[in-house]
């Protein structure tokens, strides 16, 4: 959101919400990719203030009441109504955080739920950040919402098929980003570790369901989003992941979690 305009973001998502019968969800991010800053005339030196101000304004827009706001990063608003309004009266919005403690406290301050962007390593690494969010809401007296996470994944009928797709799509994309930032390419050992115990949910529906259930339990999150579209996957491969995720993985995850509760 740092290089976008909060009013336009709200207008677009409120429109999407209307078209989709209330299914729109906004993930607000400070932006770990900053290519858009020079594109729209923003200075990276203003990285902090841009997000801080825009999140402050957006949290006001979410009330769907007349907004009065003043800052340094866009024109002031004086008691104006923003349209369209949503049917539910509250657009669902989250702040995506990648491990910056400041971002977590900021989300707590504006009373917004957080989504943990976990793109590598053991998901349990994020446990302390969840504690930070909880402590921050307690200290600030803001609502404590359930926490969600997202990670990359590829699902196919067999572990081998999913591995092959991920190796040539997800890994290649990660390496491409890494190369732009000067990071060494991923080794096969690292890739396999990510699949086995890290943050790539790659495999058959049963394998992926077990990994997701373990992550949900290990971290104590209430929501898991699968990022299914990494790299040069074909539309058919993406569709396969979506279909297997919905038809097989999600029911299996629910079953595993329900069984453990009954135990």
């Amino acid at each position: 959101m740092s290089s976008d305009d909060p009013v336009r973001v709200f207008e677009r998502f409120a429109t999407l919400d209307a078209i989709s019968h209330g299914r729109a969800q906004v993930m607000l991010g400070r932006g770990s990719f900053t290519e858009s800053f020079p594109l729209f005339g923003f200075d990276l030196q203003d990285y902090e203030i841009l997000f801080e101000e825009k999140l402050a304004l957006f949290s006001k827009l979410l009330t769907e009441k007349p907004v009065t706001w003043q800052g340094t990063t866009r024109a002031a608003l004086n008691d104006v109504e923003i349209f369209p309004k949503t049917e539910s009266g509250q657009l669902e919005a989250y702040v995506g955080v990648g491990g910056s403690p400041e971002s977590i406290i900021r989300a707590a301050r504006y009373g917004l739920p957080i989504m943990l962007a976990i793109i590598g390593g053991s998901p349990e690494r994020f446990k302390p950040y969840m504690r930070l969010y909880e402590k921050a809401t307690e200290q600030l007296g803001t609502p404590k919402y359930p926490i969600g996470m997202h990670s990359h994944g590829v699902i196919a009928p067999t572990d081998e098929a999913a591995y092959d797709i991920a190796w040539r799509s997800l890994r290649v994309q990660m390496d491409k980003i890494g190369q732009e930032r000067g990071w060494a390419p991923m080794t096969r050992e690292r890739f396999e570790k990510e699949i086995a115990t890290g943050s790539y949910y790659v495999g058959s529906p049963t394998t992926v369901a077990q990994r997701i259930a373990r992550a949900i339990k290990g971290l104590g999150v209430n929501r898991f989003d699968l990022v299914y579209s990494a790299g040069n996957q074909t539309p058919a491969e993406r569709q396969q992941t979506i279909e297997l995720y919905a038809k097989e993985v999600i029911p299996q995850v629910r079953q595993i979690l329900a069984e453990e509760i009954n135990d």
Partner: protein
Amino acid sequence: MTKKIGIIGAGKLGIVLAQIGLQAGYEVAIAGSGSPEKISLTMAVLAPGAKAMTSLEVAKQNDNIILALPLSKFAQLDSDMFMGKVVLDAMNYWWEVDGKRDDFNNPQYGTSELVQEYFNSSYIVKAFNHMGYHDLLDESSIVNPENSSIKAIAVAGDDAIAVKKVAAIVTDFGFNPLILSSLHDGLKLQPGINTFGADLEIDDLKIAIDSYTDTSFGQAIAAAKLQ
């Protein structure tokens, strides 16, 4: 006497180094970019025991200081605030944060050399820069004594005594120090070299450093040396 370490920068890396330092039995002082109050909750939850204070206080109270702030921000500190002290430079050029900077991507001159030039009354030693911050926490044998192997952290500096002190800190923090010949050699640990992101045992890290010319930035470093 309790060992002490000061950390400038309370972001992801600064917090991880504070956590490791505490685990290693160090007294840890840490400063963020704002007031100590701004990071006190973060520290209380993520690194309980680390003392949040101003960067000036951190500098005053510690002989060994880690720089863990965005590289583009170091010149906002007073150039003589670490006078006579050993300063571990864990910073890297990360253009997504620092913006495009040719001086941070110069094959003739490492970023730690720029840091040394700026803090010219201090002893700059490059350390803890090449391993990802999450990996540092996972791989530290002090934090995770059950780890099957000890990973290496490269240490590059010009002052032999300062390098020795930093190597001792690296050891205390649960890693094997791999000492390079000069601060200039720290170029081989920068983004664009295959050592960047390296989470390796000492022999493998040595191999990665020796094969620095595998990448185009490494070739530019080698070419600059011949000039």
